[in-house]
């Protein structure tokens, strides 16, 4: 075949947050960029809670809000709901810093947002190739020089490839950047239902003044049935996103069907009235890499870089992942631009990706929280006992009228110690603190 081969300056695999960001930056710097996406459209394979973080979006497009991005509500109230089996203690924050413009986070739906985000990269000059799966990289003398797709005559060449393939990082594994597949202990499965509810009902049920106010809630306790995991609730404009994420090893052990766990959450006496008469718009599930620091692959090799979920860039405690992906995508792209300037795509040159990332919150946070997933794995009661106790305690406190208060406090304490010896409680708190601080 004498046809000229498909040659680009850079190939980016996966048009998610990391990939489309990287594509926008490389194209902006004049590189001939191919962005390859396996879905019908960017976003078609993506499923998240969730919220996007303004700081990261504005960093890529300073006038982001003027492009009319497809966002749902801004997050004006955020916090925790601690569920017992029939009640809730809410600890949320609104007003104050939450109300400062620009609002720090916006709720979004990925199918629509990612398609738009990729369009911005196309506007910068990147060439989007959808409906195409990259099955392997092409190597020459050990260097990556292109990718092989699943289409006939499907080889594409570039001196450097950014892999943003997502959590199922098979290419990253094939490249030998990590020597093992995801481990059950370091990934969570999140299942979610998007339930359509009229905006005015959402506002009335959740106490939101209008459609320009929204909530991002982490739900702890009864929702995960004792497994290390969290529930969540996000307000879209005319729908609610409700889901549960639990670690894979716990799921395996308990033999609980994820969709039954989710349904149980939706039927919780506190949640059910919020979604009453709602219509299921979409159900889905996705893995979340929670290994963080310890499951991070090597981030570069000769001719290739890895970013986003594929590189385990997720902070499970803070529900952060998309912003890390954006930052990493940008840094990977800048590294590629630099490599093109030098005309050198060796691991040595690309190693600056790692040092660039170290200067960002991504590496700092991932390092700080490196012990968190282990903590939750070894302290399953944290998800169960304390929320139940909290509900009990608050319940007693506010119904204890006509009771000697000394007895009330004693009852409350007993409610805790009957669940867990006080020594262990102190130990839990200490190790939680250490895990958060990264000590």
């Amino acid at each position: 075949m004498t046809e000229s081969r498909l040659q680009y300056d850079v190939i980016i695999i996966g048009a998610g947050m990391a990939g489309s960001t990287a594509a926008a930056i490389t194209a902006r710097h004049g590189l001939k960029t191919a962005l390859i996406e396996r879905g019908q459209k960017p976003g078609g394979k993506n499923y998240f809670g969730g919220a996007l973080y303004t700081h990261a979006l504005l960093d890529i497009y300073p006038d982001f809000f003027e492009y009319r991005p497809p966002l749902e509500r801004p997050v004006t109230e955020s916090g925790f709901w601690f569920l017992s089996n029939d009640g809730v203690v809410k600890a949320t924050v609104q007003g104050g810093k939450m109300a400062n413009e620009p609002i720090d986070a916006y709720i979004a739906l990925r199918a629509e947002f990612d398609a738009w985000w990729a369009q911005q990269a196309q506007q910068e000059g990147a060439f989007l190739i959808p409906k195409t799966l990259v099955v392997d990289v092409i190597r020459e003398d050990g260097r990556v020089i292109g990718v092989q797709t699943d289409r006939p005559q499907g080889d594409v060449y570039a001196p450097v490839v950014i892999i943003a393939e997502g959590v199922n990082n098979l290419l990253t594994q094939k490249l030998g950047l990590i020597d093992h597949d995801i481990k059950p202990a370091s990934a969570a499965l999140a299942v979610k239902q998007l339930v359509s509810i009229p905006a005015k009902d959402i506002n009335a049920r959740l106490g939101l003044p209008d459609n320009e106010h929204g909530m991002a809630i982490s739900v702890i306790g009864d929702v995960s049935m004792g497994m290390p995991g969290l529930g969540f609730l996000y307000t879209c404009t005319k729908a609610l996103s409700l889901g549960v994420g639990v670690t894979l090893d716990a799921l395996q052990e308990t033999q609980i069907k994820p969709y039954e766990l989710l349904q149980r959450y939706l039927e919780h006496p506190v949640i059910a009235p919020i979604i009453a008469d709602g219509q299921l718009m979409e159900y889905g599930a996705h893995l979340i890499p929670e290994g963080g620091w310890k499951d991070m692959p090597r981030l570069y090799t000769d001719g290739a870089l890895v970013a986003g979920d594929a590189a385990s860039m997720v902070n499970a405690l803070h529900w952060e992942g998309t912003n890390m992906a954006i930052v990493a995508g940008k840094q990977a792209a800048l590294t590629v631009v630099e490599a093109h300037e030098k005309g050198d795509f060796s691991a040595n040159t690309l190693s600056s990706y790692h040092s660039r990332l170290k200067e960002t919150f991504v590496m700092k946070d991932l390092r700080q929280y490196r012990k968190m997933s282990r903590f939750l794995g070894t302290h399953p009661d944290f998800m169960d006992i304390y929320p139940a106790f909290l509900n009990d305690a608050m319940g007693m406190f506010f119904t204890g009228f006509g009771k000697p208060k000394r007895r009330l406090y004693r009852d409350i304490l007993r409610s805790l110690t009957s669940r867990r010896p006080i020594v262990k409680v102190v130990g839990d708190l200490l190790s939680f603190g250490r895990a958060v601080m990264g000590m």
Partner: protein
Amino acid sequence: MEKRQEQERRALPDVYIDDILMSLKYFTDEQELHLAIIDEAVCQACENQPCIDFCPVGAYRPQDGRTVQIAVQSCIECGTCRVLCPYLNVSWKNPRGGFGVAYKFG
């Protein structure tokens, strides 16, 4: 994991997953299956067959006693089975470009 009984937990409801899956859009590949059991005998010998429970779309189904079948067309490509199969007995790859689940909202 230690199970605590002192607080009565609400039971898990029965869920009919196929009805829930009606909310999903798929581009079904009629020509190629992206998911397969490597060795059926391994599944038959598998004690717990956890895949029947952990798959979030219930794509793994018991068939005639101890055989396990995959309803590939309902797969949403999450990867859980690849990671959790105790015998790594699942041949897992992504569907061909353009095929498989296509989230409308995400």
